[in-house]
């Protein structure tokens, strides 16, 4: 840009800033001079909170002065501003201790993504066409407010629905307060790899409705039933940290790790012993181990306590789960079950982990309860080397989190005309992509007269919206997070914006507050804060009186110290609240065999969709660094594939890279075959995450989406989708598929390197 243009923009901008710049920071035009604290060439480290997955790691943002091309009032200009250059783990954060995973590293590309929505949009073409026109923020907020106020009718429930990913922060609190003030039902939370089953099981077994935390660093024996805890499950960075210490961090002591699953995951590859059990029989195996421990009196039976009481016949020593009987159902030899049980009991502290596909079965809850009972029997609950529950920080208002309807219930209600929804607000949830076809999510959402979305990207769900109010990225806004697991300290992470917004976006909670104030009345009164930052300050202040990571006495000192540190955490290890007695009205459970959709004769294979190491549930598929990061088990990039056992492939006449068709009773898809020695002959596996229709230039029209052929089977006691309970058939198409492998073309193979 030349000097003349620069001056022109500077003049326009400063005039505009003088007119409407007061009050809200978002209304200020980005400064033309470098921010004062930034010295060109010198990096600053600002705290942040990672929002790429639910784990909630603390990060440090490396900010340096740079020149950004931005558009203001239709004019393009170069602005000197602080830019995020690199993300690292926050060394003090109790969850990740300075470490960060690949998803966290790639988070920079969220802020700088070329397909981010840069300003508010109003739909100008037919719904779903993706045709939008730019509008101003004033118009956008007025539009949303007038829609919501027109739907108010005293005495009746508000026909407004809010659809969001599960939020472990004050945005979630704000949304619930907003909805309550409107008289609308609680928010509908959606994520594909939901953890409903495990939370429910932990509530029944231990009185904690939350995900578990494992003290792997002190374990001597870890048995994981299908949990990809070093890759995609729960709190991967904290679990990697503990795992590393378990293996080589204690001189002279090395913990053993056993993985049970039907398809070797990134985690399973690290196991000393890898055990193939039939899908959905993991709980049976756990009870088989418990049977041996009980019958050989390796541990006292009463050690099982409340957890054991959830399993039928626990007190009688589980007569139905003798190794021989369990062996028939699981496919694991009886002698091996005996040996594993003896090993586990002898190598205290030992811990069982269950997660992933084991819980996405029709018997998922029983599987989880069985693993919990095994932990109780081993004496590993809230003991070093065992399973813990992260205490929640003493912030009033957090406890009042409400359970909303599920997406399945919402869409069913809309289609049956039993749930009136006149307006739908969507925040970072994409059920149109990530739900089985049978739920008819798209069809249901299309019936809603008005949809507004706050997301930063156009995806399969937000493309249905009439109004888009684009959010800041998580580096540009106030972020907070209350980790559900991954640490034994109570943690409330917090960070102010690390950089100014790049585009003409606004933070979702601030928009919600603006709308509430425009609506006035009860809604305005219920949400008194001017900005989300004000709300956070008020919410965090009660922590000042608790012993923790800050010693500041005054409210102002405390607030600035919390911002500098990236949050507040309790001093040392806090004890989680005493375990509540389990609900006695629940009858003891029996682990029965899993049910699958599709007759075995016609659909001979168990279909296993799994969380992608690259993209989790597909919400990270838009980031090019992750597209080009090879999946470590297959080494594949930029696509999807179908994992198939080499013997099965030979029988079906399928070779590596052949395009094959996978069909269930509910749909079919095509993808290239990847012959993998680490998968059971009767199982077909496929990563979730690709197959987007709309999700930016790097993800759209790439690969296939396995979710779309899943049966809408649920775990009956929780209503959670049993995404691992579908059977499929497979046939070659006669064509070649596009399979891009990093491992394909390497000349040298240092295989001899691994000799023992």
């Amino acid at each position, binding site marked *: 840009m030349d000097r003349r243009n620069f001056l022109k923009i500077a003049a326009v901008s400063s005039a505009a800033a003088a007119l409407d710049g007061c009050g809200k920071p978002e209304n200020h035009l980005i400064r033309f001079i470098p921010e004062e604290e930034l010295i060109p060439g010198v990096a600053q480290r600002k705290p942040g909170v990672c929002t790429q997955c639910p784990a909630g790691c603390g990060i440090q943002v490396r900010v*340096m002065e*740079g020149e*950004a*091309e931005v558009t203001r009032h239709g004019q393009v200009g170069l602005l000197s501003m602080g*830019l*995020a*250059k*690199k993300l690292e*783990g926050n060394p003090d954060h109790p969850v*990740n201790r*300075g*470490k*960060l*995973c*690949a998803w*966290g*590293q*790639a988070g*920079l590309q969220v802020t*700088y993504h*070329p397909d981010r929505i840069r300003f508010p949009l109003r739909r100008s073409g037919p719904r779903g066409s993706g045709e939008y026109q730019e509008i101003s923020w004033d118009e956008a907020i007025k539009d949303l407010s007038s829609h919501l106020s027109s739907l108010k009718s005293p005495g009746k429930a508000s026909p407004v629905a809010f659809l969001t990913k599960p939020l472990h922060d004050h945005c979630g609190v704000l949304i619930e307060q907003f909805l309550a003030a409107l008289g609308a039902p609680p928010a509908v939370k959606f994520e594909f790899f939901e953890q409903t089953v495990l939370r429910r099981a932990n509530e029944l077994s231990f009185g904690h409705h939350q995900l578990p935390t494992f003290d792997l660093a002190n374990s001597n024996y870890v048995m994981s039933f299908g949990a990809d805890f*070093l*890759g995609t499950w729960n709190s*991967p*960075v904290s679990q990697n*940290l503990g*795992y*590393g210490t378990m*293996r*080589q961090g204690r001189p002279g002591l*090395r913990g053993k790790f056993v993985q049970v699953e039907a398809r*070797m995951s990134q985690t399973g*590859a*690290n196991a000393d012993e890898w055990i193939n059990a039939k899908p959905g029989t993991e709980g049976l195996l756990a009870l088989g181990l418990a049977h041996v421990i009980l019958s050989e009196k390796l541990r006292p039976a009463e050690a099982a306590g409340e957890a054991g009481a959830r399993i039928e016949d626990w007190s009688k020593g589980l007569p139905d789960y003798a190794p021989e009987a369990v062996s028939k159902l699981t496919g694991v030899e009886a002698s091996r079950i005996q040996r594993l049980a003896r090993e586990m009991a002898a190598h205290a502290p030992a811990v069982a982990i269950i997660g992933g596909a084991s819980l996405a079965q029709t018997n998922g809850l029983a599987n989880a309860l069985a693993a919990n009972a095994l932990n109780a029997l081993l004496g590993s609950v809230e003991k070093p080397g065992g399973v813990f529950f992260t205490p929640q920080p003493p912030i009033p208002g957090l406890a009042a989190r409400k359970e909303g309807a599920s997406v399945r219930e919402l869409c069913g209600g809309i289609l049956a005309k039993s749930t009136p929804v006149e307006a739908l607000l969507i925040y970072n949830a994409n059920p149109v992509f990530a739900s089985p076809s049978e739920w008819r999510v798209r069809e249901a959402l299309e019936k809603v007269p008005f949809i507004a979305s706050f997301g930063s990207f156009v995806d399969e769900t937000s493309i249905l919206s009439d109004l888009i109010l684009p959010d800041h990225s998580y580096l540009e806004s106030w972020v907070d997070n209350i980790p559900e697991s991954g640490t034994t300290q109570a943690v409330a992470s917090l960070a102010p914006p690390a950089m100014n917004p790049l585009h003409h976006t606004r933070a979702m909670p601030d928009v919600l507050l603006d709308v509430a104030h425009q609506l006035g009345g009860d809604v305005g009164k219920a949400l008194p804060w001017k900005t989300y930052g004000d709300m956070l300050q008020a919410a965090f202040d009660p922590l000042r009186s608790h012993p923790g990571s800050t010693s500041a006495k005054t409210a102002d000192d405390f607030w600035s110290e919390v911002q500098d540190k990236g949050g507040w955490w309790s001093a040392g290890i806090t004890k989680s609240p005493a375990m509540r007695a389990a609900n006695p009205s629940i009858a003891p459970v029996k682990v029965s065999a899993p049910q699958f959709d599709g007759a075995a004769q016609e659909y001979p294979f168990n279909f296993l969709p799994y969380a992608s190491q690259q993209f989790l549930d597909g919400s990270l598929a838009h980031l090019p*660094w*992750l*597209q*080009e*990061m090879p999946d*470590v*088990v297959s*080494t594949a990039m930029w696509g999807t594939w179908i994992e198939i056992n080499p*013997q099965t492939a030979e029988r079906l006449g399928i070779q590596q890279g052949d395009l094959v068709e996978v069909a269930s009773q509910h749909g079919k898809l095509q993808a290239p075959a990847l012959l993998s*020695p*680490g*998968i*059971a*002959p009767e199982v077909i596996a496929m990563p979730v995450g690709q197959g987007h229709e709309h999700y930016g*230039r790097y993800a759209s029209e790439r690969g296939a989406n396995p979710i779309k052929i899943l049966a809408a089977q649920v775990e009956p006691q929780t209503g959670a989708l049993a995404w691992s309970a579908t059977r499929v058939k497979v046939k070659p198409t006669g064509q070649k598929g*596009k399979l*891009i492998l990093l491992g*394909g*073309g*390497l000349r*040298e193979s*240092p*295989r001899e*390197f*691994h000799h*023992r």
Partner: protein
Amino acid sequence: MKRQWGMVIDLDRCTGCEACVAACHAENNIATVGDDQAAKGRTMHWIRVERYWEGEFPDVRLRYQPVFCQQCADAPCESVCPVYATYHNPEGLNAQVYNRCVGTRYCGNACPYNVRFFNFFNPVWDKPLNLQFNPDVSVRSVGIMEKCTFCIQRIKTAEIKALAEKRELKDGEFNPACVQSCPANAMVFGDLDDPQSEVARLAQSNRATKLLEGVGTEPNVICLRSVS
């Protein structure tokens, strides 16, 4: 002060999570090449995690091996470069001088580890992805070889800082991006010539081995064998 930068990777800790791969891309302005070029084997993973299958189902094992420039003491890439673009620096690194490189790709052919990457085209960053560029690392152009530098920009920054503060560099004071990120603490970086350093201590382990040791490259990356 004479130094020999080196690294130890504990394969018993490495879980194959690839945090190092993403961290390296972010730190070193490494371009993504897209699916068509990736299919031709032209991706530029300065660090990659190789995986090796052993056995047959169900008695199957899969092993991970992070591979990146081994910063060889006797590096085959150095002796073949006609323009001294690749040379041995005083701190024991195989350095690559981008603006000397004329793109003969001899070094890439000579390297037994496949860790040198050629820019077949000028790299493309769709705007505004370019705003992420680390200003401490130059962006390479078409016709240039590139490779892992042990994050030499971080080494230099730390050395200059220590010099300005009139003190010695402390062991573990800084780390390359991959080491800093590694969630399982599988990687340790430091001065192999300093007997007090963590990396020198770990290099004495009875599990210590080097990648393709037999070809005589004398790597400065030491791998600790997996136990099981």
